[in-house]
């Protein structure tokens, strides 16, 4: 399947025949995908279609049974998660996983971990490198908190934040790892329309910062409004890909979602 | 966490610490005219049973001394608990040395506690008599050039080499056994006895089929005993105390082992029969000196002990009579020298005391020269240990 949206330089991400089998169950079966820099691509499909599994294999949570993932031309399948993150892929989670007993600011500062170098010595001896790096980490974290509009909640414990804010804090933490590609796992789940609108606007601003966005989304209004391209998964197989309008008219997609009319 | 109630909390802590100091002050100030005999024993924890026994014997000896009005001042027992843990023993030692009213220390129980504590008592010049620690280092460490303080450590119980040697001699020549199995409880006391027995028995030409350790607190030794039974020993030597000795005897009989058990004075207590029941019948136990029950001067010790401590769980324990003897020796020396510690130590060095263990005198290191060992045979019927030739 040639990618429709190509043309902006070499593809950022190339996924070839990616599969993930759990014993007999083929959670993911031979999926291909290409992403280029600056795109917003949505992955849709009924529950259990393998969307989260797909992201889990890409971020090293599962090793993947076969197939290749090339990120910036480098094979990343099977790498430990923190190596994948260091190479520039970041993600959020379907059910929010924040460091609940740390403050919002500290959550984002943790995101800076793979972009900083201080070991034991600098903090123990309070070397200038320590103060300087801490200042940079804190500044970057405050900047990102401001970016997602949570700066005033910086000192609140993550677990005390309202639901919508926790979602945005998780995105801020993911952005703190300076990703080239950010994967959002159902970011608008459980949000009212006003919050959805704010989130869509945030995703656009993320893309404008030069970060490619790949998201799982169920709310078609959000998918149609924001996606450059849409990929549809069903039972672990990619059944359609293309512009949002084309995909919604594709019979196989309708059948997967709404089922066949019984003739 | 509002900082206000944390401050209240901090105040509470400092208050508690201050009251501790005040309490300590009051505890030490009273009773300037009494002379205290400190007892440093494991009064709680796994060795609590044995420690409480020695404490009862010491309290009895001091009570008898007070009644006899032989001293111009009243004598008082100050019991402290080291829980058989070397760290607590050092705390106890420091607590005793900072109490000027203490003239002598009866203690500690296990060698692991006695050795470090002895260094502290020596530095403070307080004499220490141990009724139960048999590790040679307890007194041997005083010969070490780095030893600070006087030679103030004494011991009324013989080191394990004496008993081990005698038992080996007895088993080889009197009982005529040539093949023995040896078991010990992996403690300084038990392993020391077992190693001495094995060394001497092999020197005499006997063969030791097996040499195994068990852990204190374990209860099931059937696996080990089954293996020992298969090696066909003529007797089984056990280094350790009555709890494990009793279990080995009981489970040995249950497995059809008929050969006799041989052990040391750590197993000699009526409670052995509670643990082993009839299985203890016919076991040989070496003990220091002449068995208390058969010594003219000691007749009343048993009677008084039973009369004074009749409650449940107050039976005579293996080292009680050593505790009693150590206290009487200390009081004897105290009569001559008075409560001054230096004079008391010198008096103790010249001790020549006829008591439960026969005549006790100390060598330069402070070890008892009373090397009389008697072999006894346990009789289940009247829960006693009559001597046997």
């Amino acid at each position, binding site marked *: 399947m040639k990618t429709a949206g190509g043309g902006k330089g070499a593809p950022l991400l190339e996924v070839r025949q990616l599969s993930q089998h759990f014993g007999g169950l083929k959670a993911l079966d031979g999926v291909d995908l290409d992403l280029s820099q600056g795109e917003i691509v949505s992955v849709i499909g009924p529950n259990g279609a393998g969307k*989260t599994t797909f992201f*889990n294999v890409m971020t090293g*949570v599962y090793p993947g049974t076969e197939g290749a993932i090339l990120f910036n031309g480098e094979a990343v399948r099977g790498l430990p998660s923190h190596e994948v993150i260091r190479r520039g892929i970041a993600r959020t*989670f379907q*059910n929010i996983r924040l460091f609940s007993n740390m403050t919002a600011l500290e959550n984002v500062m943790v995101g800076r971990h793979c972009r900083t170098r201080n070991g034991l010595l600098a903090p123990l001896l309070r070397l200038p490198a320590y103060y300087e790096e801490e200042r940079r980490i804190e500044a970057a974290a405050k900047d990102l908190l401001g970016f997602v509009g949570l700066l005033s909640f910086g000192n609140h414990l993550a677990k005390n934040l309202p639901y919508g804010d926790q979602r945005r804090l998780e995105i801020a933490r993911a952005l703190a790892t300076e990703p080239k590609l950010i994967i959002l796992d159902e970011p608008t789940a459980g949000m009212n329309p006003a919050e959805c609108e704010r989130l869509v606007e945030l995703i656009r601003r993320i893309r404008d910062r030069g970060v490619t966005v790949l998201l799982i989304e169920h709310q078609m209004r959000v998918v149609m409004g924001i996606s450059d391209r849409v990929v549809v998964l069903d039972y672990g197989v990619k059944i359609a890909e293309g512009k949002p309008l084309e995909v919604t008219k594709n019979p196989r997609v309708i059948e997967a979602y709404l089922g066949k009319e019984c003739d | 966490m509002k900082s206000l109630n944390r401050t209240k909390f901090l105040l509470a802590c400092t208050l508690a610490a201050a009251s501790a100091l005040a309490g300590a002050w009051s505890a030490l100030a009273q009773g300037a005219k009494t002379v205290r005999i400190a007892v440093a024993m494991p009064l*709680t*924890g*796994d060795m*609590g*049973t044995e420690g*409480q026994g020695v404490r009862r014997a010491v309290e009895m000896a001091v009570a008898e001394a007070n009644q006899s009005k032989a001293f111009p001042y009243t004598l008082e027992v100050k019991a402290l608990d080291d829980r058989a843990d070397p760290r607590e023993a050092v705390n106890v030692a420091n607590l005793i040395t900072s109490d000027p009213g203490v003239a002598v220390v009866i203690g500690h129980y296990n060698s692991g506690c006695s050795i470090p504590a002895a260094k502290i008592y020596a530095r403070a010049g307080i004499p220490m008599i141990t009724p139960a620690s048999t590790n040679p280092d307890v007194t041997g460490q005083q010969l070490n050039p780095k030893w600070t303080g006087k030679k103030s450590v004494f011991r009324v119980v013989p080191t394990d080499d004496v008993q081990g040697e005698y038992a080996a001699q007895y088993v080889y020549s009197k009982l005529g056994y040539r093949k023995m199995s040896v078991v010990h409880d*992996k403690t300084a006391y038990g392993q020391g006895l077992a190693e001495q027995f094995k060394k001497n028995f092999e020197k005499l030409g006997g063969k030791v089929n*097996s*040499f*195994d*350790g*068990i*852990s204190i*607190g*374990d*209860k*099931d*030794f*059937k*696996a*080990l005993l*089954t*293996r020992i039974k*298969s090696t066909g020993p003529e007797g089984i030597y056990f280094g350790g105390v*009555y*709890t494990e000795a*009793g*279990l080995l005897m*009981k489970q040995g009989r*249950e*497995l*059809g082992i008929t050969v006799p058990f041989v052990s040391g004075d750590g197993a000699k207590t009526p*409670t052995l*029969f*509670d*643990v*082993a*029941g009839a299985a203890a019948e016919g076991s040989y136990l070496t003990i220091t000196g002449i068995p208390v029950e058969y010594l003219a001067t000691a007749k009343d010790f048993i009677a008084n002990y039973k009369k004074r401590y009749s409650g*449940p*769980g*107050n*039976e005579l*324990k293996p080292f009680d009579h050593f505790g009693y003897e150590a206290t009487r020796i200390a009081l004897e020396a105290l009569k001559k020298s008075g409560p001054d510690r230096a004079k008391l130590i010198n008096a103790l060095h010249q001790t020549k005391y006829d008591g439960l263990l026969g005549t006790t005198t100390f060598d330069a290191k402070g070890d008892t020269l009373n090397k009389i060992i008697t072999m006894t045979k346990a009789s289940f019927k009247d829960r006693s240990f009559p001597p046997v030739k």
Partner: protein
Amino acid sequence: MFLQQLVNGLTLGSIYSLIALGYTLVYGILVMINFAHSEVLMVGSFVALAVFRFAPAILPQGPVGLIVALVLSMAGAGVLNVVIERFAYRPLRHAQKLAPLISSIGVSIVLQNAVFLWVSTQSESFPELIAATQFSIGGAGVSSLQLVCMASAIGLMMGLHFFIEHTKVGKAMRACSDDLETAGLMGIDSSRIIALTFLVGGALGGAAGVLYGLNYGSIKYNLGFLPGVKAFTAAVLGGIGNIRGAVLGGFILGIMEVMAAGYIPRGSDWKDVIAFSVLIFVLLLRPSGILGEKIAEKV
């Protein structure tokens, strides 16, 4: 000789399993290591001794006496366990995960010292509820005490299995053990079920106490600590929280100890080292115990 060692191993294993069940039941529901369980075991044996001392008529020698002793000590230990849960653990249910652990350590110290101070400071001989006759099966010397011990342990385990699998209360306990909050939402009074679990756990501990006293002939205020540690190791070996796992772990640990002490010269010095090494080895292969189900982490 092998048969003899097997009998020794099965006896030891049956006692470990019975104690391990007490740990696993409580852990299954509250995900808490109940350090006081070893002392409840000791109290159970002293209840039987007390009954024998004060009312010997109730405990005639023979099966009747044994059953009465078992029932009384199971009741005593069970009630004690419920009281402990009510005052020492319930207030900490919503505290940090390790708070109940510390409370159970405190309770274990209090119980051990209480018996030391007010009951007896020394070993007490345990009444011979069953005549200790020796007879041999295929050359292995087996005592009636061992057989009774194994039989009662296995009987109690089967009883527990029936209770858990086939009764309404058992189903409620399994539900609570799976997810305490959701069980509460389904109308199960979780506090009552937890109290009941402690009752059953304590009763099993009490029974193990009696069998322990019967088999080894004497009991003491500190008899609980070492077997408690071993039984908890067995429970984890089998998969903590899993009832069949506790029984399996108990027998494996018992037989392993016996084989180590029985067949390797100086083995009894090293049997505990061997037992713990095998435990570490097994847990490396199966991080949640032999029968423990591997909870896949939902990302």
